[in-house]
């Protein structure tokens, strides 16, 4: 052997890691890289489009709204997360669990809820006499609805890792309550906060359904432009230039996100005090604001499905349940969802294990790719790359698996990284083979995270409509495409039924999530 001898077992486990990740890598190559490349090749890339002031304006707006959302989420989420990590009160656990609701809310349901509140005829609009529907405020609200919980949970993780002893030390050295938070807790929680900021920026920059439905033409983002260029105007070369630009932007942000590496979830300290005085008022205010932003739209959807002109009514629900299509929608949704989650859990589980063993930043980054690539351009790429599979069930399920994959990996990887290495060593010295140690120690300890990731994946697939819309056939209609179709029909009754359908979809998502997750999983 040449050079210094290295620890052989470690090298072997790194190689094994890459091997474990291989199936998911091949899958990602076939379903992401290849179709995307095909889309880009089809019409060539017309970079001239980046000199067009119109598209530069779209880019500027995309960046502006994403940055604005991230800043707002940070300003609201960081202080709330800090207070949550320092004080305890009955119901705090429930509040943190409820923050998962927006994660599992289908985009269309959120759109309906926001319109019911702040649309042209929304309740808030009528109440305040202030129409937000023609302003970007509605889009920002939509972004915050989905992303404020992301920020709060990531920041909470960061702040929870700061031991109360450190803050106590700062206090005895003469720092006031807020001074101690600023001097000690903030710098230590900074990686968590920065990760939250970058992730919120990414999600907001890439979201498609919200700006399509809430922004209108005036506030279209790059993603909406890509959709318009490819699906409606068939200007592939221009779209390709936008896709490349967007990809470069998101790759940079994602790289930053993985660099900020914040391992595991903080352990909540025991015996936290009850909030009093200023802290209590700040908590109440921030919690109320979060409830308004994140939960009010969901309540509005449920209410809209129950309120007719003459007050409470079951008319819409009856209409929905009597519709002969409803059982088909429900059955399809559940069937596709379960198939996709099984695939994603298997592939994603192996991939996460591989990325952990290989200790590779590259694998970490690649796992996020499906979240960063425009689903519309992907769907178009599928049609171009695999024309013979265009309207087949495997294609649709594969697209779902690709979407669900990152959620499983992102949930499992931190849990694996948080495993104390001593535990596995202990298992080995007690006579367990590497596989035995994995089965008896690793798996039971990361099972909650695996279940959480699978639950999140299932909820996402249940609400998916972008890819479904492009790849589906009428007999494969799901709840979300059914909802989309109903939204297109005019009339009070159709809106009511759409809201009832949205409530059904939301209930299904929440139930699926709760059953699979078992209330234990940590999701970030």
């Amino acid at each position, binding site marked *: 052997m040449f050079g*210094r*001898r290295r*620890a*052989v*077992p470690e090298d072997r486990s790194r190689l094994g890691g890459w091997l474990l990740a291989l199936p998911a890598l091949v899958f990602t190559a076939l379903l992401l890289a290849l179709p995307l490349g095909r889309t880009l090749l089809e019409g060539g890339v017309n970079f001239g489009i980046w000199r067009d002031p119109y598209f530069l304006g779209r880019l500027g707006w995309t960046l502006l709204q994403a940055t604005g959302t991230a800043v707002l989420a940070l300003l609201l989420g960081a202080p709330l997360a800090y207070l949550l990590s320092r004080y305890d009160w009955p119901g705090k656990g429930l509040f943190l669990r409820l923050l998962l609701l927006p994660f599992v809310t289908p985009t269309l349901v959120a759109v309906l809820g926001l319109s019911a509140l702040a649309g042209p005829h929304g309740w808030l609009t009528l109440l305040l006499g202030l129409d937000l529907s023609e302003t970007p405020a509605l889009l920002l609200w939509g972004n915050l609805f989905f992303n404020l919980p992301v920020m709060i949970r990531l920041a909470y993780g960061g702040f929870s890792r700061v031991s109360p002893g450190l803050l106590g030390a700062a206090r005895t050295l003469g720092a006031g309550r807020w001074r101690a938070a600023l001097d000690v807790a903030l710098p230590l929680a900074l990686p968590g906060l920065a990760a939250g900021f970058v992730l919120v920026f990414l999600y907001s920059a890439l979201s498609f359904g919200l700006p399509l439905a809430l922004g209108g033409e005036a506030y279209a983002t790059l993603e909406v432009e890509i959709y318009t260029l490819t699906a409606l105007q068939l200007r592939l070369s221009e779209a390709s230039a936008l896709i490349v630009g967007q990809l470069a932007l998101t790759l940079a942000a994602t790289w930053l996100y993985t660099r900020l590496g914040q391992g595991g979830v903080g352990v909540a300290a025991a015996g936290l005090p009850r909030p009093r005085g200023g802290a209590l008022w700040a908590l109440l205010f921030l919690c109320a604001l979060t409830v308004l932003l994140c939960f009010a739209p969901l309540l509005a959807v449920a209410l809209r499905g129950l309120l007719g002109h003459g007050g409470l009514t079951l008319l819409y629900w009856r209409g929905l349940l009597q519709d002969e299509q409803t059982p088909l929608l429900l059955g399809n949704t559940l069937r596709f969802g379960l198939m996709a989650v099984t695939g994603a859990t298997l592939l994603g589980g192996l991939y996460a294990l591989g990325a952990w063993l290989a200790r590779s930043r590259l694998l970490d980054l690649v796992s996020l790719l499906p979240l960063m690539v425009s689903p519309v351009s992907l769907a178009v790429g599928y049609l171009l790359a695999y024309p013979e599979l265009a309207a087949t069930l495997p294609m649709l399920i594969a697209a779902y698996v690709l979407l669900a994959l990152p959620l499983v990996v992102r949930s499992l990887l931190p849990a694996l990284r948080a495993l*104390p290495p*001593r*535990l596995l*060593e*202990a*298992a*080995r*010295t*007690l*006579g*367990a*083979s590497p596989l*035995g140690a994995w089965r*008896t*120690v690793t798996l*039971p*300890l990361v099972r909650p995270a695996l279940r959480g990731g699978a639950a999140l994946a299932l909820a996402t697939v249940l609400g998916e409509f972008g890819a479904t819309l492009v790849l589906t056939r009428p007999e494969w209609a799901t709840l979300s495409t059914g909802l989309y179709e109903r939204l297109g029909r005019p009339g009070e009754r159709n809106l009511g039924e759409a809201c009832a359908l949205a409530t059904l979809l939301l209930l299904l998502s929440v139930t699926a999530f709760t059953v699979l997750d078992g209330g234990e999983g940590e999701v970030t």
Partner: protein
Amino acid sequence: MTPHLEVPPALQTEALSKQFGAVQAAREVSLEVAAGQTLALLGPSGCGKSTVLRCIAGLERPDAGRIEIGGRDVTRLLPEARNVGLVFQDYALFPHLTVLENVAYGPSRRGQSRLRAGATALETLRLVGLEELASRKPAQLSGGQQQRVALARALATRSPLLLLDEPLSHLDEKLRGELRADLRALFTQVAAGVLIVTHDQREALALADRVAVMRSGELVQQGAAREVFTRPATAWVAAFLGWLNVLPQPGGRALLVPEQAAELGVGEAYPVLARQPTETGESVTVAHLLGPLTLNLSAREAGVVGATLRLQIDLARVQTVPDDRAGHY
């Protein structure tokens, strides 16, 4: 010290070396632990003793050297094939298993049926006095109880070699005293070879038959525990073992003056330089001709100390050793 020639030693390492980057964590470390014997590998933190332990357990692969356990060459074997019982410093109890399941883990991984493993585990728990906590989870135990479970888990494997990494470092003083006595009794009972890694010289003296002192990756002295403590080979070893009076001399030598060499109340009066109350009396430093001498006096002896103290040193009991304290530590 090998009691029967036909019984192979529980552990034998030959010229074990391990390097991490530029740091030589272990350099040609050769140790031997006979069956039924306890060896303490003693050294300050960072001296490489834990690396030696991890190499023996198979968790680290040595760059060079050879490891035999019970006469079998295990240098190239995986940890699970080495048949050692290891107690981790932070215990590394499996949080998702009960106390009984933790202790039964080793036997069942090594091929015992579930029922047999459970019985072995219960028997071992009885040995450490924890059978009534068998159904608890590790998080529900106190530090001392966790330590006993970790010990039981290692013992239940019935391994011929038991490795303990700083076994008492996470416990408070009172518990440490109790457990020391228990451990010693346990070691005689199980008849395995025991290797304890520790930085605490009192722990080594209380638990081990033999002591090996390690410094910067190298063994500097090895021998019967009492012998090493009463006759340190160098000034550094003496100071590390807690000798109060290691007096540098010209020519790179040092004098070791044991407290028992001083007879009080006779001989010349030496000026007292400093007095410091201790838990049992007082520590007094006098300006002796050999150098500043520090003596621990009982409260009664300290009562008669004035500005001077009369004492006589029995020079026959003073040892001269090389002074190797400068440079690396």
